[in-house]
């Protein structure tokens, strides 16, 4: 191959070898034992370098093997379809941002640092918590890191988790705590309301409890109502409190800071990120104004400082927590995070502003309630829980949900997430209008009728 647009020096090989003083590139690999040399081409890609035109065609072909849904999916489970403003896409496609690196050299990276600082600051206001890091991978891993933090702080071994939290987060949590030998204990939820069973919680919290985790709204979309009590009880038991939040819901409901929560986690996906088949997501992690907590935080944190001329500047702070300095004593091994997604969140929250976030949360509230109401109008269909909810909700059907899914599939609709044979979790946001919801309901009604008349 004599030229390639991404390999600029193919025509300079001779010159460069001459400067080095060797005859062949092979000479630079003479320290690699012959036995481990590959000596053949790797069987990757499509057998030859593709031109950009051919690559574009491959991308389009792959896309065409997916199904373009008729309306956005009615499935959530923690990450939901939302409209992503063009300004967000535009800013994160600025290549000064997207081709840059962790800002180790602050003087030349003030813009990036300030953008990340603003992300931290916007989330801090949303959560009413003072310290936010510059991102984790996603909600699940942020939760896991929060639990590891708690364990480092109080050395206790059990993490108390309600059954009604996101099961995907729970899977991640289980994976991450196995190395340290922590145990996960589950608290039942009330079958009527879908919210935490307080008696069971009180029964299970004890002196081994490193932290209590609650999710608001919970996995079923229902609001937990006894948070104050849970926090009080945990404090009393000297366990830490960790709360997972849907950041958009905070346009309407009380933020973790108001409850005196120690560590808040969540996902910024709902603040301006596309679904992207589940990644990149955007793990949020925040703590109270407390040195014990701050010192144990994982990840990058940007702070304000001054330069030699007393000008305001931004820099990474508290770096002595991090792996590249503390190695095995670091608070986490995290290096690469989700910085660009944090910037997307910052742009999104700046566009929404104080009023916009409330308006959007309201719109989602109304639409999801409309959808639930509409579904409940179908004979035999009922909400599974009777407490109020936001964005997501569980519906019980009189027929196996597989039948409904099949019917929806015929018109390229993605319904809810099947939870059991007769229940499914639906997600409705500002991208689902009345027509889309009505179509969903009508199709489900048909599916039920089909089964019942067959």
């Amino acid at each position, binding site marked *: 191959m004599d030229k390639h647009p991404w390999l600029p020096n193919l025509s300079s090989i001779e010159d460069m070898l001459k400067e080095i003083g060797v005859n062949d590139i092979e000479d630079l690999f003479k320290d690699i034992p012959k036995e481990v040399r590959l000596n053949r081409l790797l069987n990757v890609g499509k057998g030859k370098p593709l031109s950009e035109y051919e690559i574009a065609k491959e991308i389009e072909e792959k896309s065409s093997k997916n199904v373009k849904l008729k309306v956005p999916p009615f499935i959530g489970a923690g990450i939901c379809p939302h409209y992503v403003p063009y300004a967000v896409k535009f800013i994160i496609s600025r290549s000064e941002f997207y081709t840059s690196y962790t800002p180790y050299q602050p003087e030349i990276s003030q813009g990036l640092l300030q953008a990340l600082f603003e992300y931290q600051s916007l989330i801090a206001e949303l959560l009413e918590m003072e310290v936010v890091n510059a991102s984790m991978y996603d909600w699940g891993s942020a939760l896991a890191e929060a639990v590891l933090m708690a364990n480092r702080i109080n050395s206790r071994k059990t993490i108390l988790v309600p059954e009604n939290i996101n099961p995907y987060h729970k899977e991640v949590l289980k994976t991450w705590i196995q190395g340290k030998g922590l145990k996960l204990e589950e608290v039942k939820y009330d079958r009527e309301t879908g919210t935490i069973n307080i008696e069971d919680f009180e029964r299970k919290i004890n002196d081994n409890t490193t932290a209590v985790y609650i999710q608001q709204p919970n996995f079923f979309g229902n*609001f937990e109502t006894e948070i104050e009590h849970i926090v009080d009880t945990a404090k009393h038991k000297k366990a830490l409190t960790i709360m997972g939040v849907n950041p958009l819901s905070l346009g309407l409901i009380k933020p973790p800071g108001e409850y005196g929560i120690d560590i808040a986690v969540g996902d910024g996906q709902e603040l301006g990120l596309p679904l*992207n088949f589940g990644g990149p997501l955007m793990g949020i992690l925040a703590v109270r104004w407390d040195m014990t907590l701050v010192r144990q935080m994982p990840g990058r944190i940007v702070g304000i400082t001054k330069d030699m001329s007393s000008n305001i500047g931004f820099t990474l702070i508290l770096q002595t927590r991090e792996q590249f300095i503390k190695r095995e004593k670091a608070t986490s091994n995290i290096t690469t995070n989700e910085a660009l997604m944090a910037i997307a969140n910052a742009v999104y929250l700046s566009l929404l502003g104080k009023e916009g976030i409330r308006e959007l949360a309201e719109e989602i509230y109304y639409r999801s309630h409309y959808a639930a109401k509409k579904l409940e109008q179908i004979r035999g269909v009922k909400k599974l829980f009777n407490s109020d909810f936001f964005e997501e909700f569980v519906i019980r059907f009189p027929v196996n949900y597989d039948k409904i899914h099949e019917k929806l599939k015929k018109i390229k609709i993605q319904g809810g997430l099947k939870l059991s044979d007769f229940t499914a979790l639906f997600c409705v946001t500002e991208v689902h209008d009345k027509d889309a919801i009505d179509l969903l309901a009508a199709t489900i009604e048909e599916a039920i009728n089909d089964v019942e008349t067959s």
Partner: protein
Amino acid sequence: WDEPLIFELSNNKGKQGILINKDERIRNEIKNMSIPKKLLREKAPELPNLSELEVVRHFIRLSQMSFGVDTGIMPLGSCTMKYNPKIEEKAPEITEEHHPLEDEDYVQGILEMIYELQNWFSEITGMDECSLQVPAGSAGEFAGVLMIKKYHETHNRQYKDEMLVADTAHGTNPASAAMAGYKVIYVKSNNEGLVDIDILREIVNDKTAGFMLTNPNTLGLFEEKILDIAKIIHSTNGVLYYDGANLNGILGITRPGDMGFDIVHLNLHKTFAVPHGGGGPGAGAICAKSELVNYLPYPIVEKVHGKYKLSKIPKNSIGKIATFYGNVGNLARSYVYLLGLGPQGIELVGKMSTLATNYLIAKLRDVKELELIAPNRPRKHEVVFSAKKLAETTGVTANDIAKALIDNGFYAPTIYFPPIIEEALMIEPTETEPKEELDKFANTLRKIVEMAKLKSENILNSPTNTAVKRLDQVYANHPSTITPTYRVLRLRREGKINYLK
């Protein structure tokens, strides 16, 4: 620029950067909210109120105060800051609109892409199977260490509680090992900068769970005794773990699997050109050989009767590392990168990046103040110079050189790493920087060294061409002044918070 904080731009009045679409028909049906009053937010969050123009202009100005590979060379050692071809930005078309829990029939294109990538990365690493669940390199490492742990536990070797790590290793290696509950044992390098085989033999014993190694190592040197190392580790049932951060210099030349490694993680944002995004998101792969494939994180895509399914769960899987399937949007970018290079191009990545490193060394070989360990060994992806001599004679340190480079319009190398080299400057040019740029970079470095000898204060005062001068790290971190958010600034001004304690 001197761009105010976004909070300071806001006049706290009815401006909004985006209109919310409201479905009035729905509002007519659902008239009230029924959230219990005690749950309601009492005070609206203190977000700024701004028009679209103000938000866009603010962040564009911030972007102009940033530096990426598109702006200039970023020779950060061990970071592999290569050019990210623009066509990669088309790749997320494949993934963007799809929810991870959709019916698999809706996402066959995505699954096929993941499946192909799993195979390609297995081929590239010489492993049997890969899971692309891990959103970044360190998550891959963590997964790898958990695999080692579970593997030994399954074989009732709970006594294996020590993880070996080279003293030149990336900080993530010991950190990952510690997160998995291992005791970390450092393996000293010899005076050639390579693993000291004799020391290794001494250290390895029944408690050795595994050895985490990069090859080439962080000095850019290939561990030529790698087969011996593998034999030693395997002799006590230890697992040899490959940290893929340094793969770029040997891509297509040799494979970890062929060297005797059992588990490999890849950083797709390094070797496979996913943009670094100012720190992330990246993407990763964790791959394993033989029995260890049974421990990989799930799910893995498999092809069943011509259909792709997310159904493969290795029988002893450690579980899931990320909430869904890793950073799939970025996997698509790597996919595009591999399509563009093909087998022929991929082979040249190793060759051309190694050529670039050694060319840069050659261009600087007469600068006596930049010293090399094992100067006669060829480097691979990167090179580490020691500016110790310069620091001793002029007071100009590696950090000062870094700041002077910035002042000349270049990004700085990684500094003070690996810790075994004093005043280290760790430079990774990659295969995508043109020779002309390498020449300019080498000349600037040479001039800085000369200036340091001639008039060191010029270097010590740098940078001066940047938005700010050197920053006060004490002020930044002191409990009385530490300011991690605007909220802290605000509450401190209002007298509502105190020292961080």
